[in-house]
C-alpha cells in the first residue's frame, strides 16, 4: 500500500473517532515516509487525544526538525507546553509562529490569552485584535477580546465583542454573563437579570448565572430592606431561593423577617 493511501485511511479513521486504527495507519505511514510532516502531525494529535502527551510532544518536535516553519506543529507544541504549565516555552512557540506567519490568527489568539491571564489587558487587546482581524469567525477570540476591553472599562467595545461572539455561537453563556455585568454595573439591573436568566434557559445548572442572579436579588432585597420596604425585600429573597435554594443570606433573612423557616 502506498503512503498516500495509508494517510487517507488514517485520516478517515481519525474523523470516525477510531483513534487506535488511525494511529496504526499513521505509524505505518511515517515508517514508509519518515519525512512526512502531515503524518507526524496527525500522530501528534492522536497521541494527545489518547493523553499520551509526551509522545505527542515528540511527534510535533519531529515535524519542526523536518521543517521548523511548520506552524501547525509549532502551534500544538505551544498548546502542549501550556498544558504542562510552561508559560515561557508556550509563549516562545506562539511568538515564532507570528515571525513565520504574521497573519496567523491562532498564534495571536494564544498570545492575547496569555497577556489576558497576566492581566496585561492592553497587550491582550493588541494581540486579540490581530487574531480577530486575521479571522473574525472565532467566537473565543471575540469573547477574550471582550473580557480584555471589559477589564479596561471599555464597555462599548466589550459589549460589541460579546455580541459578536454570540452571533457566532448563540449558546456562549460566558459572553451573555459578561453582557449582564455591563448592564448591572451601568445600573440596569432588570436587563442584567434578563441576560442571566437567558443563560439558565441554555444551561439550568450554570453556576455563574445562578450566583449572579442570587447576588442581584440579594442586593435588591437589601436595598428594599434599607428603604424600609420589608415586604419587597422578602419577595427578592424568595427570588434568591428560587435560583439558589441554599443561599445562606436569603434563608437567614427570610427566617428573621418572616419569623419562620422559609
Amino acid at each position, binding site marked *: 500500500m502506498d503512503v498516500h493511501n495509508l494517510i487517507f485511511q488514517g485520516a478517515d479513521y*481519525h*474523523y470516525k473517532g477510531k483513534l487506535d486504527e488511525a494511529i496504526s495507519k499513521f505509524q505505518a505511514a511515517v515508517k514508509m515516509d519518515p519525512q512526512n510532516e502531515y503524518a507526524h502531525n496527525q500522530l501528534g494529535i492522536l497521541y494527545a487525544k489518547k493523553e499520551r502527551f509526551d509522545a505527542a510532544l515528540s511527534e510535533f518536535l519531529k515535524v519542526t526538525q523536518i521543517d521548523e516553519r511548520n506552524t501547525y506543529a509549532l502551534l500544538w507544541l505551544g498548546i502542549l507546553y501550556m498544558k504542562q504549565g510552561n508559560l515561557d516555552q508556550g509563549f516562545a512557540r506562539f511568538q515564532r509562529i507570528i515571525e513565520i506567519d504574521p497573519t*496567523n490568527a491562532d498564534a495571536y489568539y494564544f498570545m492575547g490569552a496569555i497577556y489576558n*491571564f497576566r492581566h496585561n489587558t*492592553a497587550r491582550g487587546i493588541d494581540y486579540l485584535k490581530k487574531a480577530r482581524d486575521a479571522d473574525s469567525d472565532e467566537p473565543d477570540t471575540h469573547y477574550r477580546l471582550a473580557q480584555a476591553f471589559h477589564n*479596561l472599562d471599555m464597555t462599548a467595545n466589550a459589549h*460589541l465583542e460579546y455580541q459578536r461572539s454570540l452571533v457566532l455561537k448563540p449558546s456562549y453563556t460566558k459572553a451573555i454573563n459578561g453582557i449582564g455585568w455591563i448592564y448591572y454595573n451601568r445600573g440596569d439591573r432588570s436587563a442584567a437579570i434578563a441576560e442571566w436568566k437567558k443563560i439558565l434557559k441554555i444551561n439550568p445548572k450554570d453556576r455563574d448565572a445562578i450566583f449572579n442572579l442570587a447576588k442581584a436579588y440579594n442586593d435588591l432585597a437589601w436595598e428594599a430592606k434599607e428603604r424600609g420596604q420589608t415586604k419587597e425585600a422578602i419577595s427578592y429573597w424568595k427570588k434568591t431561593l428560587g435560583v439558589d435554594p441554599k443561599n445562606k443570606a436569603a434563608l437567614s433573612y427570610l427566617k428573621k423577617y418572616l419569623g419562620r423557616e422559609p
Partner: protein
Amino acid sequence: MMDRRRFLKWVGKGILSSSGVWLGTRSIAWGKSAFDYALEGQDLIAAKRFAEARDVLMEAVRLDPTSDWAHGLLGRAYHGLNQNAEAVEAFRKAVRLNPADTYSRMMIEIITQKPINKLKKPPQPLSPLEKKAKAEEEAMLGNLSSEGGLTYQVKRVVIDPGHGGFDSGAVGPTGLKEKDVALDLAQRVNQEIAKTGKIKSFLTRTDDYYIPLSDRTVIANQYQADLFVSIHINANENRKAQGCETYFCSETASSKEAARVAAFENAVLQYDEPFKKRPGYIDIEQILFHFERRLYWKESGKFAGTFQNHFQQALPFKSRGVHSANFFVLRRAKMPSILLETGFISNHAEESELKKVSVRDKIAAAVVRGIFHGRA
C-alpha cells in the same frame, strides 16, 4: 469561513465521515446543470487542466452553492493552480456542507500546515454600536499602548471583609467581633488605596450585613478584579494561639491547620462539579482554563509571600507564615486571591491590640503595601 483552531476542535470531536456523495438532484432544465459542470470539472482536474477546471467548477458552485462535491472539486482545482488560500476556502465550504468529507478536511490540514496568504473580505458599514466602540477605542488609545511585559498587573482590587450581619465570625474574650474588625480594616485599606489614585478598589460589603461566600467572588468577578483580598481574624480554642498568617488557594492544604482553617471558612455547600472529561477529544479552552487557574494560584502564592513579609515587618504579631488550602471563597475567583488572618481574636493580648486604631492603621498600611508590591 472556518478557521484552523475551530477546525482543530472539530477534528477533535471525531465527526463521522462518508465519501462525499453528490446529494443534489440533477436539474431537468434545458441548459447544463451544476452536476454537469462539476462532472466536467472533475475530468479537467484528472487531465491536469486546472484553470479550465476552476472556471467550470465556479459555474457549478454558482448554480448549486449547496454542493459540497463541487466545492471540494473547486478546492482541488485551486490547489492545482497553487492558489492555496482559495483552495482552503473552497475545501472549508465543502466541509461545512458535509462535515464527513474526509478528503477536503485532510487537504485543509495539509495545506494549512504552512503559512498561506489570507483572502481579504470587503469592508462592511459600521453599526451604531461599532461606531460607539470605535470612538471609545480612539479616546482610550493612549492607555492601550502604555503597558508591556508578562509581569502580573494589578489595576483593580476587591477587598472582602469576612463575615457580617448575623455571622459575626469569631468573637474575642471581651466580645470583639471578627466581622467588625474585618470591615473596619477593609474600609481603611479601601481609603488608603483611593488616596493613591493609582488603582481602583471595591469592597464586597460596606456595612454590617451578611453576604454568602458565593456572592463575594461574584463581586470580584463583577468588577473584573485583578486581585481579591479577603480579610479575616483568626481564632482557636487554644487561647494562647497567636500571630498573623496568609492563605492562598491550592488543591491540597499545606498542613492540617490550613485544612482546619479552610474547613471553618468554607462552612457552605460546595457547588463545584468534577470536570467531566470527554474521551478522544482535546478541549483547548479547557487547557487554557487550567493553565489560567494554575497561573493565578502561582501568582496568589507570590502575593501571599509578599503580604506576609509586610505583616512580619510592620505588625506587633508573630508571623505564622504562608499556607495554602482549598478555600471556597478563593477558588471561584477568576484572579489571584488571598485570605489574610490578621491576628487571633481569641487571644487576649491580640484582641486588645486589634481594638487599637494605631494597630488597625498598621495592618491596613501593610495590606496596601502588599497590594502595591505586586503591581508592575
